[in-house]
């Protein structure tokens, strides 16, 4: 699968639950297999994104943090 980001969500500065709300809205517009990159600064987002992926069945391809910014790459199921 090519690691080409199809869409990006900038949720930096937003508090819970807006990062996952924006992610869910973005995922709806994508097709199966496409990748979504999300940037967030909410400290709870590492666990929240893992939980979101587990519940919705979308794949968490990457989860990293750098300088207080959390980056997630999700694959639309």
């Amino acid at each position, binding site marked *: 699968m090519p690691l080409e980001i199809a869409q990006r969500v900038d949720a930096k500065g937003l508090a*819970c*639950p807006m990062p996952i*709300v924006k992610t*869910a809205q973005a995922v709806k517009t994508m097709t*199966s297999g496409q990748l979504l990159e999300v940037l967030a600064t909410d400290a709870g987002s590492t666990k929240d994104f893992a939980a979101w992926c587990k*519940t919705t069945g979308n794949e968490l391809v990457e989860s990293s943090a750098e300088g207080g910014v959390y980056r997630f790459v999700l694959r639309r199921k």
Partner: protein
Amino acid sequence: MTAVAEPPMVIADEPSVAPVPAVEDDGAAKSKDVLIILYSGDLEKTWAAMILATASAAMGVKTRVFMTFWGLLPFVKDSRRITGENWMQKLLSLMKRPGISHRKMSTMNFLGMGPWMLNSLAKKYKAAGPKELLEAAQAMGVEFIPCQMTTDLFGLKREDFIEGLGEPVGAATVIGLMTEGSSPLFI
């Protein structure tokens, strides 16, 4: 004659797993429904309910909010000042102002200082407020269902409520949803 059903045969080296049904691909979960019963009309409790409702919808979970008693008041239009038909209902709306932008806190309200400070903090930390969350929840398909009995008790009319609410229902519908497996949450 014995009518004992034979236990299903288990053959060890044959996979007993049923074929996985095709998942309807909408990027959402196929899990239990969530049912939030909003009884309180207090600012912070309405807020918490809206956070959970939007998060639940974002998780792809079918989400319903049943509003009863004071929980109805945030769903009356902000512009409505006096509601009801008789003096008691009118007095009630005068003392407990309806509308999502006019909620008071259950504690530390201090004549509006508390809500003002909470809203200022929310702005500072970029936390979405109850009104924004309610709009997001509606956009994501959360069903908001008023309680028929308390709607009548408060003398509320369809035109008093914000747009997009479901048909008012009673307790039996709510209990019915729970028996069908909705996870209930009473706020």
